[in-house]
């Protein structure tokens, strides 16, 4: 059955004309657009208005809007209104994509030019977030009833800005760390003892300014003490690992020197023509003895002795704080902890001493008594 009131039925009659119109619009869009790839492939604003792909996309979208607008609204809500919403959704999606690609493109370009650091990252991120904020407001505000538009404000307003600020602030030390290490690697710097120590020191600074702050954040509630002790233990573990890295770096450097020394010995033997190792066993002997010399030389130094002392001290700090955390975390369990046992050991030790002393006194008194008896008997 035909429904004469339905404009969609007329569509069939107008179909050939529509086809022609659509083809013309498509070709126009392509002919007006700059050649693809000339201003970048993405649809973002930096390549945005000037971008070939972006131009084609927007022109085509506008045409589609105009096209569906030619048809009157149908019953049941379908028709131009529905298409308009769909096309608007697609537009939002494309704009969101554009914000991201712009952000990454600029960051990539700055990084390539060696300009990116946490300050610039902060600047870029804020620029991007400002645009994002406006876009979210536009999308949500337009879609929501007036009474609920505060939700859009929540997602894009001060709270959102605070979140962004904190996130940027949290990660910026790691960006600086990664960039600094990347630059060193690009320069082909050899990580000697100092290099490794410096790298760990930089790592520690990044940790201190990010996760370190997070771990030291005041805890609350029933497990407050355990959480704080855990945080302290983790801090101490980081400190221990830093010195451990220095320690291994020192050992590694000695290993490198040992190898150089061995190479020197072998080269000398080759040039002098007076021997060198005649078997693998002999080469092995040269290897370990040369290394032993270098390591002992290192171990004798004041610096190594201090480093070892430092390592033990940091190890003790971690052990103590971790022990403290374990005791706190297990205090409800039905067994005594180390501190309680230590208290008991101390008591037992003192009692033992007292008993020993009393026994000796008793023995001396008995001896005295026996002596007195003997004398009395005479």
């Amino acid at each position, binding site marked *: 059955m035909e429904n004469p009131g339905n404009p969609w039925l007329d569509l069939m009659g107008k179909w050939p004309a529509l086809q022609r119109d659509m083809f013309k619009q498509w070709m126009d869009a392509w002919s007006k657009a700059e050649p693809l790839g000339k201003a970048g492939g993405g649809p973002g604003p930096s390549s945005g208005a000037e971008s070939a792909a972006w131009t084609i996309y927007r022109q085509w979208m506008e045409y589609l809007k105009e096209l569906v607008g030619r048809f009157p609204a149908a019953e049941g809500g379908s028709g131009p209104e529905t298409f308009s919403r769909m096309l608007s959704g697609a537009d939002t999606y494309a704009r969101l994509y554009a914000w991201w690609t712009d952000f990454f493109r600029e960051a990539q370009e700055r990084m390539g030019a060696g300009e990116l650091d946490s300050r610039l990252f902060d600047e870029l991120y804020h620029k991007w977030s400002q645009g994002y904020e406006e876009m979210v407001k536009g999308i949500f505000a337009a879609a929501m009833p007036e009474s609920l538009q505060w939700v859009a404000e929540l997602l894009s307003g001060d709270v959102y800005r605070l979140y962004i600020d904190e996130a940027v602030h949290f990660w910026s030390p790691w960006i600086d760390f990664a960039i600094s290490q990347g630059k060193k690697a690009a320069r082909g710097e050899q990580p000697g003892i100092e290099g490794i120590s410096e790298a760990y020191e930089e790592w520690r600074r990044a940790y201190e300014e990010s996760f370190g702050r997070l771990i030291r954040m005041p805890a609350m509630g029933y497990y407050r003490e355990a959480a704080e002790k855990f945080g302290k233990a983790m801090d101490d573990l980081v400190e221990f690992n830093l010195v451990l890295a220095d320690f291994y770096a020192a050992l590694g450097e000695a290993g490198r020197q040992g190898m150089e020394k061995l190479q020197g010995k*072998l080269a000398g*033997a*080759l040039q002098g023509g007076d*021997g*060198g*190792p*005649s*078997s*693998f*066993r*002999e*080469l*092995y002997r040269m290897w*370990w*003895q040369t*290394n*032993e010399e270098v*390591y*002992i030389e290192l*171990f*004798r130094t004041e610096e190594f*002795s*201090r480093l*070892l*002392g*430092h390592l*033990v*001290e940091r190890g*003790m*700090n971690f*052990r*103590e704080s971790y*022990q403290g955390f374990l005791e706190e975390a297990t205090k409800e369990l039905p067994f005594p902890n*180390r501190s309680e*046992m*230590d208290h008991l*050991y*101390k008591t*037992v*030790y003192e009692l*033992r001493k007292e*008993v*020993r002393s009393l*026994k*000796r006194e008793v023995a001396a008194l008995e001896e005295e008594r026996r002596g007195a008896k003997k004398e009395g008997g005479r």
Partner: protein
Amino acid sequence: MLKEFLDPRFFLQELEEVSRKLVKGMEVLLTLPEVDLEPTPKELVFQEDKMRLYRYVQEGPVTCPVPILICYALVNRQYMMDLQSDRSLIRNLVGQGLDIYIIDWGYPDHGDRYLTLEDYIDVYLNDAVDHVRRASGQDRINLLGVCQGGTFSAIYTTLYPEKILNLITMVTPIDFHVTDGLLNVWSQHMDIDRMVDVMGIIPGEFMNVGFLMLKPFQLMVDKYVGLMDNLDDPATVANFVRMEHWIFDSPAQAGEAYRKFLKDLYQQNKLVKGELEIGGRRVDLKRITVPLLNIYATEDHLVPPASSVPLNDLVGSKDKTLYAFPGGHIGIYVSGHSQKELAPKVAEWLQERCAGKAAGKASKKTAEPGRAAKKPSALKHEGAAKRQPAKGGPRKAG
């Protein structure tokens, strides 16, 4: 030479030889019977807390009526001196007709963290000395201290000179500020208080890491590579396993005693300065006036000779002997040279200072039941089956 080494045929020959030894070695390791330790028979005669006092069974004639009490270090175990029957300083000393007692300090655990240096010297060592004095009937006995036990013995002799007839120290650290020894150097920057406060007792493993670092490649690499050369010889492998067992049989250190030993001696060198105090009494090495035999090892990497030698200048003794043993800290007990030379030297030195010097009242008590002199050849028989049980079992201190 290097040319020959670079020739792959030589390398392949070596590889083939090593592979053959490894295969044979695997067979040896898989069939190796459990190794025996401390083969010289001994009996437990006294016990106080974890400290045990043993007396070696003397089946031959006693050549010196004054017994020797051996005071070993708290680090590692005393059976280094009696590791295997053909390399046993103890067995050789017993064979020389000496009456030997030895202290086994045991394995301190967390319950022992509050034991002090005073407890070790004024209580355990003193009670062991008193027991030996009582059992032998001698007012004064011979004291032989090994390594840290030598330091204890020297300190003890200054505090109780009336109980000691002769003092022998072996590889004993006295001057802790010599820079030859890495342990001396490293200990200067250690926060000992922090270590003891946190750990309570210092684990043996912790100490062992330090000892291995003294000769890292020799002790952690070459020792095991060297084993490969003899992996096809069961006797050598068994010796190696015994030594390995001893090296890693490391008792923990009682915290408070460790604190004082490291701080007062290693860090502040108070013994040499005459500033050390034990139980409120100052330790003055000049108070040692008994004959002294100070034995050190010329190649000692743990206790450098420069640390041991000064003792002879610091004591008040007129009769003092310095004896340099050509070897290392461990070789002094297990090397072939030690077996042939050291035990006879110690015995000879003691015997010269023993005759006629034993306390008069001792004669009644020296010959305890079951201790009649026998021919030295009887020493060849050893093991638990030959042990003479102590009469009435071990005496326990109060």
